[in-house]
């Protein structure tokens, strides 16, 4: 199930940051991928849209707390998005 979440989040990040999905691996840092703090807000909002959830993280603290693609995947896991039914 985590693989499904990982694939979805990688697609969301790649789309927002205009990157080739193969570059977006769990160990990649958002900074090296060129993901800005505004991108990060859009990424979190897109995750909210796709999973129809509210992720109550502070947008300013988010850029300090989530440094890698893996961190965002863990964020998704911590909000129980694995196996969560996505909005079509």
């Amino acid at each position, binding site marked *: 199930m985590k693989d499904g979440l990982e694939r979805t989040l990688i697609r969301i990040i790649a789309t927002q940051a205009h990157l080739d999905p193969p570059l977006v691996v769990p160990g990649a840092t958002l900074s090296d991928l060129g993901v800005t703090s505004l991108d990060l807000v859009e990424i979190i909002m897109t995750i*909210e*849209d796709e999973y*129809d959830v509210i992720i109550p993280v502070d947008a300013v603290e988010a850029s300090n707390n989530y440094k890698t693609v893996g961190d965002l995947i863990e964020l998704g896991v911590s909000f129980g998005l694995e196996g969560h039914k996505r909005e079509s």
Partner: protein
Amino acid sequence: MKARALAEALDGRVTGDADAEIARAVHPAEVACERDIAIAITPDTVRLLGASRAHTVLVLEGTELPPRQFGTTIFVRRSRSNLPAITQIFHHRPTINLGIHPSAVVAPDAVIGEDAMVGPLVVIGPGAVIGPRSTILSQATIEDGVTIGADCLIYPGVRIGWGCNIGDRAILHYNVSIGADGFGYVAGRPGAHETAEVAGDCQIEPRRNEQQKVHSLSIVVIGNDVEVGALTAIDRGTLKPTRIGSGTKIDDHVLIGHNVEIGTDCLLCGQVGLAGSVAIGDSVVLGGRVAVADHIKIGDRAVVAAAACVGTNIPAGAVYAGYPAVPRSEAMENLKLLRRLRRLMARGQNIPTSVA
């Protein structure tokens, strides 16, 4: 200069030919000849070294170089001062011919300091004082009573209006305007904007409401080590000077209105606009296109994100963003709420618009 000397100046070390001559410092993609040194102190530029024509390169200690030979490599420690130090060594200096060019028009009682330069077609008014070793390049206009400190560099086309004071080591780029009149008018009767503020609209009687000019009687005072970008305009004050504190750096196309006071060591990025009587503390950073309404106060060390529109005072140390500018965390929260509103509206699209 030789690679050895460059490395010493940067407190670095050389491998390869330490006697290699270096004429220019350039981006790895811009190397044109052996005398160019490729500066590669970021991951992006290091990646370009493999395909670069560079013979001589400068990189950070610990950099993994691409698998090819370079004639000379200079290694420097990671430091925030690397780029300032490198560019200080190689920066272009204007050709300076000491003294006054024959085509310059200099008032007889103007004082030109020792080892200063006054370039072609410069105009210097009565009573102006140019400090020692300052350089006034071609076609600048320095009006009567202006004082310019020591070691300043005034680029072509700069205009400095009567009475204004510029400190030491100022750099004023092409076509800076210092000391134009402030934008101040009083209408004979309450103007449209005043009526709108009170009444909510401006349905005023359709006859002329002549704007009376408020003249600018004061000057502009600029501290030491201030740099002002091309085409920036700093207007003179009405009854007290417009002031720019020492160490403040101002980008191109910035507008600084009358009576504005800016503290020390601030950064104002391109297209910032400060309306009249704005007061800005020390070490404030205003991102590009930040607009600040008249009489607003911004505290020390505040940061305002690009394109924000400031209509309220900002306390010291705060970070503001958005339109209207609010604390950054609030601006981000507003963005999130807007995004969620889209989802909420989609969900509520079948709700009747009327309960009647």
